């Protein structure tokens, strides 16, 4: 009887159907798939998948913990707390402002010259804080000069500078440079803040 031949296609059609339309990310045309495993192989593959998935989860966690420990060690080694000095960049602008670059000099030496990708600039706009520079300075007085360039509303180019004379004490020193238009509306400026 012909029924024995049509079995394979019809089973595929009906077995596949339910799962297909719920492949939400895929457009419908490409969701014309038969994604589910056949019943007899399903259980075995599912178990194997789960074992591997759980092992991968464990491994990722161990590597994350290792990265945390190595990150801490690296900072302690390279930037001991009595000389550590870090400069951060953040943004606090109401209107759209695209940050293009920041140049940073400490004691008249170039220490950072950073060009921002669109992704990084966006991340700053959303509230992220970038550690632009981390290095070692002796205790005492130092001078920082920072210049940023970028584009404000109506494709207007900006270039602004700020300077700060600061005292480096015995503990770590953190300085935040914020591109802000709070002081003068629609005129981004650098605000400098020292963190203890």
């Amino acid at each position, binding site marked *: 009887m012909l029924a024995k031949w049509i079995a394979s296609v019809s089973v595929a059609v009906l077995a596949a159907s339910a799962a297909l339309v719920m492949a939400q990310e895929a457009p419908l045309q490409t969701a014309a798939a038969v*994604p589910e495993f056949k019943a007899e192989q399903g259980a075995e593959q599912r178990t194997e998948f789960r074992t*591997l998935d759980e*092992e991968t989860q464990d491994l990722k966690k161990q590597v994350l913990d*290792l*990265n*945390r420990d190595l990150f801490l060690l690296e900072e302690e080694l390279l930037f001991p707390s009595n000389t550590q000095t870090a400069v951060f960049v953040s943004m606090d602008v109401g209107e759209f402002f695209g940050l293009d670059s920041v140049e940073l000099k400490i004691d008249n030496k170039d220490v950072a010259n950073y060009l921002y990708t669109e992704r990084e600039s966006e991340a700053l706009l959303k509230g992220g804080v970038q550690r632009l520079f981390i290095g070692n300075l002796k205790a005492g007085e130092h001078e920082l000069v920072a210049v940023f360039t970028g584009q404000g509303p109506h494709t207007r180019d900006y270039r602004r500078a700020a300077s700060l004379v600061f005292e480096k004490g015995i503990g770590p020193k953190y300085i935040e440079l914020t591109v802000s238009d709070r002081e003068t509306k629609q005129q981004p400026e650098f605000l400098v803040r020292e963190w203890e």
Partner: protein
Amino acid sequence: MAARLPIVAAVALALPALGAAGARADDEGVVVQDLAYGEVLFEFFQEDYFSALTRLLAAQERGELEHHGPEAELMLGGLYLSYGQHRLAGEIFERVLEQSVDPALHDRAWYFLAKIWQQRGYLPEAEAALARIKGELPAELEPERQMLYAEVLMEQGRFADALATLEAWRRPGDAWVGYAKFNIGVSLVRLGQVEAGARVLDEVGRLDPENPAFDALRDKANVALGYAWLQASRPVEAKPSLQRVRLDGPFSNKALLGVGWSDAETSDYRAALAPWLELRDRSLLDSAVQESMLAVPYAFAQLGADKQAADHYVDAIEAFSSEIVRLTQSIDAIEKGELITELLGKREDVANEASGWYWRLERIPDTVESRYLYELLASNRFQEGLKNYRDLVELNRNLDRWTESLSAFDDILDTRQRAYEQRLPAIDASLSSVDLAALTDRRVELESRLQAIERSEDVVALGTAKEQESWQRIEAMEAKLAVLPNDPASDEMRAKYRFLRGLLLWDLRRDYKARLWAEHKALGDLDRQLREAQRRHHQVSSSRDDWPEKFVALTARIGTLRPRVQGLQESAQVALVRQQQFLQGIAVEELKAQRDRLNTYQVQARFALASIYDRAAARVEPAAEPQASLAEGGQ
């Protein structure tokens, strides 16, 4: 501040739904109060979840999140989820979300966790997570939640429950209602309720014909409906729905095959041949096309056209043979590891894009293997396995980088140790040249002198050097004046003496308060300077004393980290190979199933061909010649 907590944390959990652009902070949104938290956000907003996690874990370890404690914990959960660490995310959500968190955030977090669990086949966990959702999700997620729940139930074989869920959630006008109905229809057919299922599928099959967005869904429903009728041996009902399927759509092959079968079932083989012959020039990758290669000669044979039937069987056997060869080549290629490379590119390029759970294979490369495996490659299990594979590649690269860094750490430590040893003599000399104890003693002496002056109101003691000298000269005069006779000249001198003494004492008393205040102030300044000197002395001295211990501790830390890196490197390498073997294994299994089916078809074709030869031989029994020629064609 408290009001902001959910908003900031929601940023982490909003990402999957809205994409990176949807998580913009505004004036009342993210207010970073700890720089370390801002750094985490900077990585997170760039979708670099691994770096964000590392920074966050380090910040927690160092206690740098004084102002963002609770939201940082929730952020950690969100980041774990984004990085595909669903079990850790679940543990954190369990702990944090059940406390005082915005209900909308609570529900959204459990929804996304349920989704990853469903995709990875953790079905009871997914069901439990969905059950935690208390309210209704935002409009764009609520239908997905309902579908997800139905899917979780169906994947556990609980069709009746799935059906009840979907029935309870029928909302006319909702864009997802068509999909829900489709699933209801299929569930009903699977439960054996063909009539009821067919009614629902028929409705979906006629859904909004003017709207092209539903084209694929309509086709799918019509094909499912047609085959449901065919399976139920009701070919006449099957045909209309199959004929509604678009001829140029992805389901047309199955529809054409089905139309043919519905005619064949009613013994109208001539009619059946029309759709089946239409399939002849289509891609042999499709199982419907493969099946039609057997169906066509079957129909010819039924019509008594043995010659055409034999010709088509011969064509089918040849086509199946070459297809089997291609499948075998593909299986070999996959077993050599070519599939993963084709899908992801070279290993060094793999992890350059965003990592984690939101990544999805956007484009399936156009190769022989991927054409056979299109459906498998789109499946959740393959996609999720591929994500794990990518993450493992990145882990391996990360560990390779740290192996290099660890050697550099040794050098840095050695350099610092050498610098310490070189500076030590100078530091010791400098420390010993300063006698802080003597300075402190002098300060104590000064203070007690000042106290004595204050007690006795010794105004002279605070006079200037000139005043003190004048005072001494005046005091010395007193004894001399006492021995002088009492004559007018001496009396005048005594009067002058009293005047000068009174004048000087007047001046000294007048300035006494101000001078006393100035002395106290100077003593205070001295105190501060002395304390600063003591502090610096202590700092230098303790740095000098602490370093040897610190050196030992840092050396030990590097010493313990090195075997951890090496051990994980080995584990990550093994896991990567196993993950690759798993993905290859399911691909090979799929191809072997296709090859087995073709082998079966080939056997059936040979068997049918032999029967035709037998019949032909029987018809021309006295003369053996024609049978021989047919047999030659069949070899």
